[in-house]
């Protein structure tokens, strides 16, 4: 009887050990697709494609270089507007938008100003400084830089499903709109298509 109890205990221990959480750190460059839903790989690929397209001109220099040529070397200023998610999935757009902002700033071709959501906090701090900071260190009012262009975009998806198979198509469109004239100065697009096959029966 005792030996039976010991064997049961050992089996339980083994089972518990087998179910323990395993964590393996991997490179952010490694592309893993588990569920087929939008993931970090998609976000990064969209960012890469949009950044590349943004600094490419269809015929001649890119929009930012053209702006510099027409404005005595001054860089265009961009504000990030709304990036609408029209798909059925939850897609955090901030990841690739931040990548794009970072690319603009690092390139030295484009200036980026705080978006409508971000500037409220900055304005509150500036107002606070008017009362509480010393005169020589306080940030002055009315010195904000106005943007020349607004970056807008949307993500759409089309899903085709049959049985355990699914084809998901994502299309990300980004547009740069001239704030004075409403003219669309640049458009970028990236498309992703995934074929997802899920087993009908799962053991676990």
């Amino acid at each position: 009887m005792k030996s039976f109890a010991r064997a049961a205990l050992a089996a339980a221990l083994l089972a518990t050990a087998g179910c323990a959480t395993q964590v393996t750190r991997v490179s952010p460059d490694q592309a893993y697709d588990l569920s087929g839903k939008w993931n970090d790989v998609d976000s990064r690929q969209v960012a890469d494609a949009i950044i590349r397209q943004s600094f490419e001109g269809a015929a001649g220099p890119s929009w930012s270089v053209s702006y510099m040529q027409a404005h005595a070397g001054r860089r265009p200023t961009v504000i990030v507007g709304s990036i609408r998610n029209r798909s059925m999935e939850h897609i955090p757009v901030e990841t690739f938008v931040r990548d794009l902002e970072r690319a603009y700033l690092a390139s030295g071709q484009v200036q980026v100003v705080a978006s409508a959501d971000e500037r409220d906090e900055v304005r509150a701090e500036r107002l606070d400084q008017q009362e509480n900071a010393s005169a020589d260190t306080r940030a002055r009012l009315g010195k904000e830089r106005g943007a020349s262009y607004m970056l807008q975009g949307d993500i759409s998806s089309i899903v085709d499903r049959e049985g355990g198979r699914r084809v998901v198509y994502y299309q990300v469109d980004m547009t740069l709109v001239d704030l004075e004239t409403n003219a669309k100065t640049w458009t970028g697009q990236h498309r992703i298509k995934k074929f997802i096959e899920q087993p009908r029966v799962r053991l676990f």
Partner: protein
Amino acid sequence: MMKKTQAAAAAAALALAAACAPRMQPVRPIQANGAMVPSTADATVAAARDEAHAERARIAAEQERTMDAALAACTPSTCNAVARGELSVGMTREQVLAATRTGEVAWEARGGGAVTTLTPRDEGRAPADAVAEVAYVTLQNGRVASYAYREPQGLRLVSSAAEATPAAQARARAEALRREGDDFALAGDFQRALDRYDRADVIAPGDPETTLRIARALDKQLRPYEAAIRYRLFLHQLEIEKIRAYGEVYAGMAAAAAEARSRILVLERSGR
């Protein structure tokens, strides 16, 4: 026996389901799951940074050359205009580039021989001077004969130094607003016409032509008291205009009288 029949039925159902499924070519993956896919953004950004650096250096060198050429031989008034960043009649092509802080790449030259027209190469990013966005510049024998600004009410042509002053700019804008108001009045929309006339009156106040239009628009809108006030103001402004006109005539005559007096003196002395 029953079991065999059931198994056969199930197999047939499965075969039928498989036959009804859409047929497709084998899926060709473009990226293996778990593959290393390094981001290309950093390389793109580095290339863009180099391009921006080179472009800015090129623009700065070009501007320096243009500015040197523009300021090498300019009259004091043209030099001042270049320094202020304003176009003026009589400028050379280099001075136009210097005043608008642009390079040759921003402009497209049309025509040839004696008359050349410079138009912005990219309408969406047209060059501008300190006053407004420039629509075109006409050069005659290498000098600016006229230029046009793109303003909210349309193009404003400048072909003389007098037309480039802020007062002339206001007059031109008021004139454009009056024209716009006239179009609305013609269409029977007196409210919008009145709005344009009011704006013209703000830009160039005291102009009897604007006051008369405001009076008429108010009259047509059946606002008699306001219309009467405007009509009276119009007549008052006309009186002022008359006095001003007489004053100018008398000023001209005073110069002529002074000239006659000096001539009489010269003639009398030479006759002695």
